[in-house]
């Protein structure tokens, strides 16, 4: 573990990303304590500039606190990013593992299914899915999962194809281990590193998709999110720049931080890059 940390911390940018990400997670965690009221709550002070009337980052057209919206929105964004990614990785690993391990007809069927999903542009597909289902937090998570899992499936299939004929796997066969046990206990741990890397990057993509959907008015209207604030404040941009600007910055630095962390994980976990110093 200390070895891992050493390799990770060699990448300064990754450490910076991790610090920013921790701050975002911290803000999301304490959102309910620092802003105990509903972030949708209006006030008598619409369009207050940052610092005015006690609004740290200003207020929007009906006097909602932008800072409170960003803090509560962080919770939404991170949660959606995490859950959608876990679900996508879960589905992707199952598809990829079976396709790669068994090959032949199983591989053909599973990969053709994956390709159907891959051929549709992912953001357009996500819009379509949310528009068909009612815009809600569940439908957004489902939509992001559906458009994200094929990449994981492809990756895992490749790893399994490479590993399944290695000596240690053949040894397991001769020992009489079941296929499922070989897949789960022997091959999967050996391809965990690339899955972790792609997963961490997928969290960033998921946050972007969620913000994009909310921006188009397809987010859950009853849940505060960064995309929602930007969408609502866009028509006021010329009069109240702060409504769009701060949540925009929040999205930018969060996505950047996650990408930096992902890059660091790649450095730390990829054996071929271990010599890079």
């Amino acid at each position, binding site marked *: 573990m200390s070895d891992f940390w050493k390799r990770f911390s060699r990448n300064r940018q990754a450490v910076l990303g991790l610090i920013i990400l921790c701050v975002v997670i911290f803000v999301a965690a304490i959102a309910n304590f620092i802003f105990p009221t*509903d972030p*949708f*709550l*209006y006030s*008598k002070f*619409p369009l207050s500039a940052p610092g005015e009337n006690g609004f740290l980052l200003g207020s929007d*057209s*009906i*006097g909602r606190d932008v800072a409170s919206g960003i803090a509560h929105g962080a919770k939404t964004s991170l949660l959606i990013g995490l859950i959608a990614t876990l679900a996508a990785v879960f589905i992707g690993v199952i598809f990829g593992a079976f396709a790669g391990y068994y090959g032949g007809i199983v591989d053909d069927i599973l990969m053709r299914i994956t390709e159907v999903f891959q051929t549709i542009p992912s953001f357009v597909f996500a819009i379509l899915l949310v528009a068909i289902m009612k815009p809600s937090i569940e439908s957004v998570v489902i939509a992001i999962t559906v458009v994200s899992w094929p990449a994981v499936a492809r990756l895992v299939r490749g790893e399994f194809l490479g590993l399944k004929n290695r000596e240690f796997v053949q040894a397991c066969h001769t020992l009489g281990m079941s296929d499922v046990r070989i897949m789960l206990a022997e091959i999967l741990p050996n391809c965990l590193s690339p899955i972790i890397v792609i997963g961490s990057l997928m969290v960033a993509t998921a946050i972007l998709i969620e913000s994009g959907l909310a921006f188009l*008015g397809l987010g859950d*209207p*009853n849940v505060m999110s960064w995309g929602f604030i930007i969408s*609502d404040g*866009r*028509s*006021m*941009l*010329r*009069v109240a720049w702060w409504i769009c600007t701060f949540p925009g910055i929040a999205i930018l630095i969060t996505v950047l931080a996650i990408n930096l962390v992902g890059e660091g994980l790649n450095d730390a976990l990829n054996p071929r890059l271990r010599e890079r110093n």
Partner: protein
Amino acid sequence: MKLTKIMKGVLAAASIAVVGSFAQAQQAGGSLVFLVQPEPPTMAGYVSTSGPIGLLGPKIYDGLVDYDNDGKMVPMLAESVDVSPDGKTITFNLRKGVTWHDGEAFTSEDVQFTIMDVLKKVHPRGPNSFKEVSSIDTPDAHTAVFNLDNPAPYMLRALSSYESPMVPKHHLEGQDVKTAKLANNPIGTGPFKFVEWKKGQYMRLDKNENYWREGRPYLDRIVGRFVPDASTRAAAMEKGEVLYAAYNAVSNVEAVRLNKEKDNIGLTTDGYSMINPMALLEFNTKEGPFTDAAVRRAISTAIDRQYMIDTIFFGYGKPATSALSSNFSATGLHAKMPNYPANGDVAAANKILDDAGYARDGNGVRMKGMFDLIPYGEDWKRGGQYIQQVLGEIGIQVELRYEDVPTWLKRVYHNYDFEMNLNYFYQLSDPVLGVHRHYGTNMIRKGTHFVNSSRYSNPELDALLSAGMTTPDATKRAGIYLDIQKILANDMPVVNLFELEFLVVYNTKLKGAYGSAMGAYASFGDAYLD
């Protein structure tokens, strides 16, 4: 520094003088591109009064008369109107030599057909406006004689091209008027001919070379552009890509800014005096959580109307104090009613609900509901978000729904598949024309837009509405409408929120398009560019 300022002043004065001399000339030619928001569902202004139809329809169709800013009639297709002493016979002397855009002659038969077979049957407000018209005689091609059962002075205020467009008999006769092809290929007698409708982009109208008014229209072309995004609309106005925007197509916040920052962009609240718009909540009184009048009274009591006007409409508007607009004070019909507090009273609203026996659950929620928002732009969305919060304070948890115009109209007026709906209605120049349609039992008309979607039915009120229609005496009429307002302040099938003051944002390059009582719903026959 000082000198340049003075120089600028001189230059500005000179340019005004130049503009002035051009104004005398009233140049012909040019295209007017203006904003139409949202895109109209059809162009059948004789079937639906959906706002955006009015922005384009009156350019294509003429009415019998138009109205000036004092509400006086201006001759259009009718050169003159004679009312008999008993008020029961009204003779319209029609203009000669008027043709439809397809070349056919316009005759008194078209007038008879339009009133009796179209407006009286399928128009949302027509059955009220022309209720007393029992028949129309056509002694010759240029005379139409309306025979009335009772005097109906309000009818003469409902004859504009927006309210009662004259439609070609030969394109509708023998067909189902509601589904006839004319809806998407309008053929009128107006100053502009329909040319092309690119869905989602624009509608193009070209000059009618055979228009009956000599030398009109000045413009060669009118293009109505549909731009769904509010900030893009404001930017188009700022850059001069579009020259005219009415009915909040440019939001108030941007309108005020543009007027302040740009010398060539003006702002006016004129052009809405015949419209008298009222923002309101419609409720489903037959199904769902809002069937109890006490709940509706509580909602009306809780909402801070002044706050909505100040924050969402930037001060343009007036809190509603009754089912009737305060603009009816001039005729003595409006009376201030309880349950319409301008600043909202959440405590009183909570008490109403407590007394009615609606207990809060563990989360403080008394009831849940679905809240539809009129899909006419972001101001309304924001208004809905505010109301959602206030209702939360009195324990009513609502979910917001924002759809496209046809889906929303179908939901509310065809299927009654709604619980609470944010909307606005035109109360027009008389309650008979604009208000009765919202409450009368005879106005529960499935599939007709902007009528009694609440399906509220009260025989006592129906009797008063009929009396209000036929009583000419002003004092008696005021008494009748006082009773009407008392009943509606108690039953509240509709909660009036505030009287809207719409803005017109215009580029000063465009002249002659404002100053008419019909505003953006006028023909633009006198509009020109300099």
